[in-house]
């Protein structure tokens, strides 16, 4: 059971997408787990043959529990007769290995706590960190460990790490978690239900309609599309669990992080004009919203002020291994998730717009992926759509900064001694005073404002 954030300590396995004997590649989606926040798709950290599914559907287990064993390709050839996978170094590696690795120093770090330097090194050398035994303090993986692993013969060449998955990797019919549970309760065969949600997603109402329509109620499909056996959490329980998870994390943030706050009013005239021109030419489906440009400026400004992009861990700042923007998305029915847009600084505005739409859709349909929930290096919150002028957010530990964007609106604004009505937006920064001082924070916000004056360069 991988940890999907500093606030998660257990998860419920709701669906296996593989069965014993299936061949999986590193990065393939193999299961869906349900956390306090939402249903998350998790991928295999290894390539090989699924040996055994250890945790049954419906069971809630703590972070770090082995979910399944996967036999690497070579080992499989030699162990078919033995029936049991060997447990020597090249033996079955666990899907959850990654979750056991964190050097627990503060006690609550996210699972991928190998330092960014180590991760960069591992990536360069093609080493799979989940297979490396740490010899450092508290089992921490050191550079020497990575180099040793790189030198040693490996069971299989590690494929290039999947940093950005294309949407829709799994060509399965999307089903919202609620619909899935309901279908299990009512004994509805999901394969026979027509989805009306985004991307054909099956929603609660579709399942109810299917029962009303007198669809023959079949027992839940056999493996691997097995429905949860355990009576699922009710909506109220889920809402409470989410509030508690958010509460724990935010309390920790305010307890540990000495926040400082800055704000800046930015003239958006250039941005709005540019958008207006562009959108006139674009098909409706490719139309851009100001949020896409604001995200791009947020990311580019971080390139120039990298001190705000990363984590505060073990009493020092660890720079992020890329600019991965965690985007706060409110869920209908309450609560929020902050999935990441990876390498946002290198995406075009149109690509960012696409990523944003995709993330929002999947977050609300309960279809996020593990990497999206654990790898953000900074968070951006955009409460502007809810009509507020400015938002001063709470930092998501162990990140060191949070950027807030208010509602773009026309306001009196003085330029060259004249007051006129202009579209403006209030950008804010909440930052960790341990990692940076107000001077750096101010430099960041002004850099972002400068970038927004030249939207054509974003």
């Amino acid at each position, binding site marked *: 059971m991988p940890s999907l954030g500093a606030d998660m300590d257990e998860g419920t396995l709701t669906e296996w997408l593989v069965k014993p004997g299936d061949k999986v590649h590193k990065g393939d989606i193999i299961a869906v787990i349900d956390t306090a926040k939402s249903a998350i798709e998790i991928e295999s950290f290894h390539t090989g043959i699924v040996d055994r599914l250890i945790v049954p559907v419906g069971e809630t287990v703590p972070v770090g529990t082995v979910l399944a064993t996967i036999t690497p390709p070579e080992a499989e050839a030699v162990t078919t007769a033995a029936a049991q996978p060997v447990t020597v170094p090249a033996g079955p590696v666990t899907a959850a290995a990654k979750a056991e690795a964190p050097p627990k120093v503060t006690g609550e770090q996210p699972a991928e706590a190998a330092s960014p330097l180590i991760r960069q090194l591992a990536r360069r050398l093609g080493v799979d960190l989940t297979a490396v035994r740490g010899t450092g303090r508290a089992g921490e993986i050191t550079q020497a460990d990575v180099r040793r692993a790189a030198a040693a013969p490996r069971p299989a060449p590690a494929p290039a790490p999947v940093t950005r998955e294309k949407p829709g990797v799994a060509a399965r019919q999307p089903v919202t978690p609620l619909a899935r549970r309901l279908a299990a309760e009512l004994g509805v065969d999901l394969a026979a239900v027509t989805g*009306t949600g985004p991307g054909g997603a099956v929603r609660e*109402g579709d399942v109810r309609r299917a029962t009303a329509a007198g669809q023959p109620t079949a027992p839940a499909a056999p493996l691997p599309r097995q429905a949860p056996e355990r009576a699922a959490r009710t909506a109220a329980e889920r809402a409470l669990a989410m509030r508690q998870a958010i509460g724990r994390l935010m309390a920790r943030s305010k307890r540990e992080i000495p926040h400082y706050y800055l704000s800046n009013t930015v003239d958006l005239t250039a941005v709005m004009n540019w958008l207006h021109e562009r959108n006139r030419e674009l098909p*409706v489906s490719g*139309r851009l*919203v100001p949020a896409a440009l604001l995200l791009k400026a947020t990311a580019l400004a971080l390139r120039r002020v990298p001190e705000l992009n990363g984590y505060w861990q073990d009493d020092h700042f660890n720079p992020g291994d890329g600019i991965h923007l965690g985007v706060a998305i409110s869920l*209908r029915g309450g609560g929020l998730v902050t999935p990441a847009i990876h390498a946002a600084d290198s995406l075009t505005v149109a690509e960012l717009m696409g990523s*944003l739409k995709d993330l929002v859709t999947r977050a609300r349909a309960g279809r996020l992926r593990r990497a999206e929930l654990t790898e953000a290096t900074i968070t951006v919150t955009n409460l502007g*759509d809810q009509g507020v002028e400015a938002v001063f957010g709470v930092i998501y530990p162990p990140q060191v900064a949070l950027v807030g964007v208010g509602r773009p609106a026309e306001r009196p604004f003085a330029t060259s001694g004249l007051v006129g009505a202009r579209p403006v937006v209030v950008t804010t920064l909440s930052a960790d005073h341990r990692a940076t001082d107000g001077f750096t924070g101010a430099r960041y916000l002004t850099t972002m404002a400068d970038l927004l004056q030249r939207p054509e360069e974003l």
Partner: protein
Amino acid sequence: MTPQQARDAIAGALRKIAPDADPATVSPDADLRDALGLDSLDFLGFVEELSQRAGRRIDEDDYPQLATLASTIKFLSRS
């Protein structure tokens, strides 16, 4: 489009982008985005859907006319 077709198109578009929202509860002159809690992406999705159903392009300049149910129906049935 007849007003009834426009109404159906709106209901269909809303079902798709905000399945939990019930347009029947929204008064014809209430601000749609506020009443249904639509953010800018939701609204864009709504416009996309409407545009498809109505078979015509809806520009940003037209957005003010999509503020309420009543004005949207009027806008769609005018063409």
